[in-house]
C-alpha cells in the first residue's frame, strides 16, 4: 500500500475561515497558548492573507512535505526529521528534537513551530485530547505530518484517510491525494519551486497575481521579492 501522499489546494476556493487551523489543533493536541503571539504560537497550518491592493486571497500553508532533499532533514543534528520512503511524509520526532531550531531557519515555508511552553489545557479540555497524537513538551519543534494518527488508524482497518484540515474545510479547497494515482492538475504550482525542494503540496489559482506567490520568499513576503523572476 505504498502511497505518495500530497495535497492539492485551490486558493480560489479558500474563504479564509480558519476551520482547517482549528480542526488541525484539535486533531493533533495543539494546546491553546494564551501567552502566544503570532511569532510564538503553534499552528501546524496557517492561513495567510495576501492582496494586490484591490482584492484579497487566502493561502493555507502547512508543511509542504518536500521530496528527498527536504531542507529540514539535512540540517537536523539529531536525525529527528526523516522522509518516509513509503509515504513521502516528512516526519518530525519531537522526542529526538533538542530544540536547536536549525530546521525552522532552514524551512523556506515557515511551516515549523517551536514550543515555547509546556502544553496546558484548560480544565475539562484535556478530555477531548486525541489519544493518537502524543503531546509535545516545551523546547521542541513540531509541524504538520499529514495527521499521522489517522494514517495509523487507516493502516489498521486497511482503509483510506484524510487529514483533519481536509475534512474540516467547508469550501473543499484542500484535497488529499495519492500522487501516484492522481497527478497534479494543470496550471498548478508549488511554493518556491525554484529552490528545488520538490514539495508534495500543489496550489491552484486562476488569478495571475495569486500565482506569483510561488516565487515570493513567503506569502505576502518582502516587497519586491520575486520580481527578478517576473522580468525573466
Amino acid at each position, binding site marked *: 500500500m505504498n502511497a505518495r501522499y500530497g495535497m492539492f489546494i485551490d486558493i480560489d476556493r479558500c474563504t479564509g475561515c480558519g476551520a482547517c487551523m482549528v480542526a488541525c489543533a484539535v486533531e493533533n493536541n495543539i494546546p491553546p497558548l494564551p501567552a502566544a503571539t503570532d511569532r510564538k504560537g503553534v499552528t501546524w497550518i496557517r492561513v495567510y492573507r495576501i492582496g494586490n491592493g484591490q482584492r484579497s486571497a487566502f493561502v493555507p500553508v502547512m508543511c509542504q512535505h518536500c521530496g528527498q532533499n527536504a531542507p529540514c532533514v539535512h540540517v537536523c543534528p539529531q536525525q*529527528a526529521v*526523516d*522522509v*518516509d*520512503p*513509503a*509515504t513521502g*511524509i516528512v*516526519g*518530525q*520526532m*519531537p*522526542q*529526538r528534537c533538542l530544540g536547536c531550531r536549525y530546521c525552522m531557519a532552514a524551512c523556506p515555508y515557515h511551516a515549523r513551530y517551536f514550543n515555547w511552553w509546556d502544553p496546558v489545557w484548560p480544565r475539562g479540555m484535556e478530555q477531548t485530547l486525541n489519544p*493518537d*497524537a*502524543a503531546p509535545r513538551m516545551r523546547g521542541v519543534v513540531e509541524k504538520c*505530518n499529514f495527521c*499521522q*494518527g489517522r494514517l*495509523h488508524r487507516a*493502516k*489498521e482497518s*486497511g482503509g483510506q484517510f484524510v487529514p483533519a484540515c481536509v475534512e474540516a474545510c467547508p469550501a473543499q479547497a484542500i484535497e488529499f491525494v495519492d500522487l501516484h494515482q492522481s497527478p497534479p492538475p494543470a496550471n498548478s504550482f508549488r511554493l518556491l519551486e525554484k529552490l528545488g525542494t520538490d514539495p508534495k503540496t500543489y496550489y491552484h489559482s486562476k488569478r495571475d497575481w495569486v500565482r506569483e506567490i510561488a516565487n515570493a520568499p513567503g506569502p505576502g513576503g518582502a516587497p519586491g521579492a520575486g520580481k527578478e523572476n517576473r522580468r525573466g
Partner: protein
Amino acid sequence: MTIRGEVFFLTGLAAALAAGWAGLPRALDRRIPQPMEFSHKVHAEKAGQSCEDCHRFRADGSFAGIPPLDRCAGCHAAPMGATAAEKKFIAEYVTPGREPRWAAESAQPENVYFSHITHVKRGKVKCESCHGNVGSSNALPPVYVDRISGYSGKVMSMDACVECHRQRGLEFSCLGCHK
C-alpha cells in the same frame, strides 16, 4: 607510587566499581510488586489451550488488555486447589470484587503507536515472538521500571521492533510507529 599506595588505589577502584555495578540498576530502576503469585504454566495446562483464552482480543482484533477479574472469578469463585496464594486471591480480590493491579511489563510509552490488530491479526505474528515464552513460566517476571520515565525497559525495546521490521522490509520512518 609506593606499593602500598598502589594497593590502596586498586582496592578503592575495585570497591567503587563493585558498588556501581551492584547499586546502579537499583538507583535507575524501581521494582513494581505484583499483587500475588501467578503461574502461567499451571493455567496454560488446566484452564486454557492458547493465550487468547484469557488474554482476549476484541471483535475488531484490538487487544483487550490484561484479563479482568471476571475472567478469573469464573473458575475461582471457590478455591479449586489448596494453595495459600489462591485463598488469598479469593479473600482479597474475588469476594470483595476488587480488581488486582497487575504490573504490566509490556506497556508501551505514550508516544508509541502499537497495534495488536496489525501485528497479530494481519501480520500473523505469534504472541511468543515479542512476549517470550510466558506461557510456560512458573512465576510472574519481576517488573522494573525506570524511576524517571516510569517505563519498563526490559522487554519490547525499540531495537527489537526495528530488527524485525528491517528483516521484513516494513516501516522505515520514525512516525511509522511513533506518534
